[in-house]
């Protein structure tokens, strides 16, 4: 486990990197890491996340700053800038159904070669994907997603990197912790080992490479 300032973490992340970023409409998103990426003028990023939040919050700040080249998300309806940049051809947006997105990220993290889902059958989401029949029902084959980095927001972390999350700030964070080649967590509090009991740990510290330290 290596503690880092947000600025130092942003230096680890090269332009053009692919990033899994936790959060749902900016709830459970690592804001200090995002601010540090913008401060170092990151560009060409691929962002894989539930949504692009709204202007001024979470991933919305990366969109506004022009740091993102490609977004793989389920929803952009509450960020008009994302829609405008997409329609203007400045930003590639790949829309993935939310349940499919989380399973693809999980598959990448747990070593599965893909999952079969009924979601998207017969819609635009089916285009170009194999359809596989199992026990008389048809499913889309959806492939795993991994990324160079996973940027997580957590509620508490302990010194060995065990993480727990609060209420609706869980969302994609526990799954993304499995699927980044390098995993960086931004907790709201860092507590001594033993403060988070084993049964309360949602992300084992062995998955976490770096913790963002207090300012």
């Amino acid at each position, binding site marked *: 486990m290596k503690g880092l300032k947000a600025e130092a973490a942003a230096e680890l992340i090269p332009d053009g990197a692919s990033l899994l970023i936790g959060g749902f409409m900016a*709830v459970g998103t690592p804001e200090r890491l995002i601010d540090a990426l913008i401060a170092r003028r990151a560009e060409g990023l691929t962002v894989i996340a539930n949504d692009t939040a709204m202007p001024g919050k979470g991933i919305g700040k990366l969109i506004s700053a022009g740091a993102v080249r490609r977004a793989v998300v*389920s929803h952009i309806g509450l960020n008009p800038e994302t829609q405008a940049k*997409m329609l203007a051809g400045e930003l590639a947006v790949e829309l993935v*159904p939310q349940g*499919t997105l989380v399973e693809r990220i999980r598959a990448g993290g747990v070593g599965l070669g893909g999952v079969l889902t009924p979601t998207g059958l017969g819609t635009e989401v089916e285009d170009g994907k194999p359809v596989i029949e199992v026990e008389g029902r048809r499913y889309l084959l959806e492939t795993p997603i991994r990324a160079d980095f996973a940027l997580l927001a957590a509620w508490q972390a302990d010194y060995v990197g065990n993480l727990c999350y609060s*209420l609706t700030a869980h969302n*994609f964070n526990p799954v993304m912790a499995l699927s980044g080649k390098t995993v960086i967590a931004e907790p709201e509090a860092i507590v001594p080992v033993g403060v988070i009991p084993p049964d309360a740990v949602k992300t084992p510290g062995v998955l976490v490479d770096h913790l963002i330290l207090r300012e």
Partner: protein
Amino acid sequence: MEAKELIARRVAQEIAPGMLVNLGIGLPSLVANFVPAERGVFFQAENGVIGLGARPPEGMQDPHLTDAGGGFVTAVPGAASIDSAMSFGLIRGGHLDMTVLGGLEVDEAGMLANWKVPGKMVPGMGGAMDLVTGAARVVVAMQHSARGGSKIVPKCSLPLTSLRRVSLVVTDLAVIEPSDAGLVLRERAPGVSVAAIRAATAARLIVPEEVPEMRLG
């Protein structure tokens, strides 16, 4: 009564004690206001809580407790936090008793389109494709018409959300149930005639002999 309230009140009648129900952003989220707490219903927000409660008191909002639209909510006693994998596991796995979603179009086959107007407005499907595919019952809550045009059409022109037929459509004019034979007009809004509904509907409607007024609880 305002159109949105009428729709929300009528949808609330579909919700039975003990159900697990997902309410979409916007109009569908109003439904919770008309379901008495005593009914023991658990509302799920796909972003991660089972047991969504009302708006919190001023100054007591928790930044970690919001609905799928990002608005502050509370949690009822007995609530559970879940991550997105569990949330959509419940949805896709058939554990959700009902979902209430908005719609752009519903057609005679009961297909729903609600996530994209090509070249114009692309909010994305969010959780809608999983919800329509996986929930035990899919209720569409929407205005009957938009910009003067019927949203209930012979065949959807917009990209579909799922191949799954929706269970019920509740609008400010009518309750319509898709079936093998087509769209069946089940109820009229108070004071609205069958003829007025037909006139406002682009799709063919099957009209039974009796079309009662909506029950609004």
